[in-house]
């Protein structure tokens, strides 16, 4: 069954259809969230929240964008918003500016690709800037607004991320 059929069914309350949508898209959403958080437990919580919000918002989905684009946009909004609610996120961001050492990411038991193995080692803010800019096409100005940092900070964090990852290759 296609996404469009399942979207219609799920928007009318069909949980089986929503589960099919979940099964088709969860790997992409989980990957995106895990790259931003590098924390399995937090990624689990956020992905659950994202799909619950997707279920609630499905009746408003008008089909103008691809479902995956809509879902990823929702995932990004929920991910960043929820992360910002957490005090430890701010603490980590401060720490990220101070240290250049590799962070030990909670990625045990996850099957990560070569790029992901590098990404999860980046400090928090450096990683978020890299993921949002290099992989999700956000501009530095948009990232600055999202993360509440200066545009220049976003640019320098991106430069730093690339340098660090090149060193680790």
């Amino acid at each position: 069954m296609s996404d469009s059929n399942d979207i219609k069914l799920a928007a009318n309350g069909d949980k089986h259809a929503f589960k099919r949508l979940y099964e088709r898209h969860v790997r992409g959403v989980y990957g995106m969230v895990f790259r931003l958080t590098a924390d399995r437990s937090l990624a689990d919580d956020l992905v659950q929240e994202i799909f619950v919000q997707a279920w609630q918002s499905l009746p408003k989905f008008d089909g103008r964008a691809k479902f995956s684009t809509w879902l990823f946009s929702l995932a990004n909004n929920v991910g960043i918003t929820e992360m910002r609610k957490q005090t430890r996120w701010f603490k980590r961001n401060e720490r990220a500016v101070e240290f250049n050492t590799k962070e030990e990411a909670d990625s045990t038991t996850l099957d990560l690709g070569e790029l992901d193995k590098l990404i999860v080692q980046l400090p928090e803010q450096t990683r978020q800037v890299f993921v949002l800019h290099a992989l999700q096409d956000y501009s530095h100005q948009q990232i600055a607004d999202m993360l509440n940092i200066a545009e220049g900070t976003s640019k320098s964090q991106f430069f730093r991320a690339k340098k660090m990852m090149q060193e680790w290759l």
Partner: protein
Amino acid sequence: MSKNKEQQLDALIARHRSDPDGIEPPESLWDGIEQRLQAQTTERHDNSHRTWWAAGGGALAASLLAVAVLVGYNGTQSGTAKAPYESPYYAAAAQMISTQAQQVSALQSGYKLAGLEQNDEQLATQLQQLANARQSVLEALASGPGNAQQLELLRWINEQELALLEQSYQQKPTLKQI
């Protein structure tokens, strides 16, 4: 920094952008989502239930009118009717009504034992309307071969009766004078 490593990283990024890798989540993730969806559905159902009954006798009467129309319509569709009381639908309906009577009796006894009584006139009227609707369905089943839709209507009427009783005791409990 060698040019080679820069190109290597750029190649990894380009590959990811053209075909983003997903990451397999833990298997139990869906269970948590499903539980939250279920909780929301139950809450939504409860709210709509309250709203429905809060609308009062008008809503109930309108719904029961729809039941009467459906029963009447189905009752006249019986082309090759079996003799009354032979239909398996009728037998199932009789069983459902008997079970319902026991459930209603047990529910009312329970509330009375807890010192609660309900002397609401509107409640009595609505219960009577439900009883009339149930009787209409039963008569329609007795006069034709019956169908699953009629049983479904009966089930719906029974559910409304139980919900109405529970709701009335929960919303307007009156302590019995001892």
